[in-house]
């Protein structure tokens, strides 16, 4: 179990983290989700030991590792830009963590080679061990980085924007593959992302962060269906905001509406386009811009028409 307790961190005048508390169970797959500057990468680096907190503690299985150096924490870390050793072959990269062990702990050369082959098989790069990183595609490099991190048999796997530098198609394939790999290995993992889709698809629990604070922790459907704060509601998924009848704001998703004959909210249609099984209607309601989805079985609303709708599910903030 990983426990982070009251972590704060400042960079000069800038407060990156304010009193973060977080508990992660064994085998969980956790996403740290937030916009840039939210402190998610700083938190990940503090857990890894690449950065040190100003105050607070980090516990691995009840053991205080707050002052322990990164090399002694036994965490696997996958960097955003892969950080592969360009002058080493793929196999040498993967074997690096084993080959730098002290002579007493170091496996024999043959064992190291066998382990590297096994890991390359696991990340589906069998037979590419003799290549250099410069000869691989982005997706392949990312998998080498993962195999290299797994070689030291980490207790915890940390991934910093693991798919950030990849194109959309490769991203999607790699995402699915990583989820299967996590199921298969059951290794406690934390990954940082600014992509909500990635977080909601992969993680067992999502930690939404903003301005160095945790806004909400929950399972993906909780985060999506019951956002705890206006920030989460706005940041995760598409959200319309209207002024509430008794002050405050009402938030609702474009797909959580029904058309009504009378009453409800009037919207003057600006633009209509097909989005999957719906017509996406963009329009003006009062002084706010809203987007609502209308069943595509109905005729397309015309631009300039006024529709009336009522949210079927809404949150009041």
């Amino acid at each position, binding site marked *: 179990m990983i426990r982070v307790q009251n972590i704060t961190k400042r960079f000069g005048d800038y407060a990156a983290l304010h009193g973060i508390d977080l508990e992660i169970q064994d085998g969980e797959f956790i996403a740290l989700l937030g916009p840039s500057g939210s402190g998610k990468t700083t938190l990940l680096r503090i857990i*890894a030991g*690449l950065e040190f907190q100003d105050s607070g503690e980090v516990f691995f299985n009840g053991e205080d590792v707050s002052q322990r*150096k*990164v*090399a002694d924490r*036994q*965490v*696997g*870390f996958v*960097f*955003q*830009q892969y*950080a*592969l*050793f*360009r*002058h*080493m072959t793929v196999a040498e990269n993967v074997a*690096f*963590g084993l080959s*730098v*062990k002290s002579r007493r702990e170091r496996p024999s050369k043959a064992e190291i080679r066998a382990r590297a082959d096994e890991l390359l098989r696991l990340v589906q790069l069998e037979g590419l061990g003799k*290549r*250099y*990183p*410069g*000869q691989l595609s982005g997706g392949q490099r990312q998998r080498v980085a993962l195999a*290299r*991190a797994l*070689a*030291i048999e980490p207790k915890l796997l940390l991934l910093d924007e693991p798919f950030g530098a990849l194109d959309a198609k490769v991203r999607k394939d790699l995402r699915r593959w990583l989820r299967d790999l996590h199921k298969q290995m059951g290794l406690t993992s934390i990954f940082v992302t600014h992509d909500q889709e990635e977080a909601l698809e992969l993680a067992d629990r999502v930690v939404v962060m903003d301005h160095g604070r945790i806004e909400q922790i929950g399972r993906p459907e909780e985060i999506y269906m019951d956002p705890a704060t206006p920030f989460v509601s706005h940041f995760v998924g598409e959200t319309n905001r209207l002024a509430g009848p008794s002050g405050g704001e009402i938030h609702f998703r474009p797909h959580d509406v029904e058309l009504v004959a009378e009453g409800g909210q009037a919207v003057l249609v600006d633009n209509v386009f097909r989005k999957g099984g719906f017509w996406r209607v963009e329009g003006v309601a009062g002084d706010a811009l809203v987007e609502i989805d209308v069943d595509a079985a109905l005729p397309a609303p015309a631009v300039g028409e006024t529709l009336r709708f009522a949210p079927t599910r809404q949150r009041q903030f």
Partner: protein
Amino acid sequence: MSSTSLTAGRWRRPSVLPGFGLTFGFSLAWLTLIVLIPLATIFLKAAGMGWSQFVDVGFSPRAIAAYRLSFGTAAAAGLVNAVFGLLVAWVLVRYSFPGQRVISALVDLPFALPTAVAGIALTALYAPTGWVGQYLDPLGIKVAFTPIGITIALVFIGLPFVVRSVEPVLADLGKDVEEAAATLGATRSQTFSRVILPAIGPALLTGFAMAFARGVGEYGSVIFISGNMPGKTEIAPLLIVTQLEQYAYEGATAIATVMMLASFSILLLINLIQAQGRKRMGA
């Protein structure tokens, strides 16, 4: 597309960078004018003197001692520069501190300084009565007028080459690579020897090669501090000048030819090693 590339020969493929013919032709003409023709005249002169005379002069005991001294001290100075130049480059890239720009400018000073000035200054420092020499002399360490003094002068001359060739590569080698090594359990010294050093190796070799080449040809700063005793502290470039002053043009060209061939072989070898390294990294 494929048929044109076939007819045009294997090494000339259609390229998005036009003008290969023009630029290559111009570079070749320029190199010929500036480098090749002057060097060729030396060969021509040397060729006119006959093989046995060439060997007599070019490989006389005095000449061989001079080659040994020149190449030996240049290699030693290149090695010293490789170590300390790397250190300077490291400090300039990895840390920020007050006066950084001043130090960076100081590094280039040996390029700009007239070499004779450097030679005179160093001699004044290291002569048995000089600021530094007076403390070394009682310890039995003689620097001025010995190969050590020559090496010091060449270290001074060659420093910028290593610093300036290593600096950009070191800056390009991201911090995350070092962090990756640390997460994998590597100690600082393992990270240095197995991750950083191999990555900057080619640039370091380039810096060494340039410092070495400059050292072999260096004349101005060395002649003051070397003492110029034939067979002991007489460098090959000085031997050439001495021959010229005695109107022994054949001797001068013979020695110049030997030096040129040796330098060219060494530089070519270093280039080949680097091409091999680049190919391995798949770049």
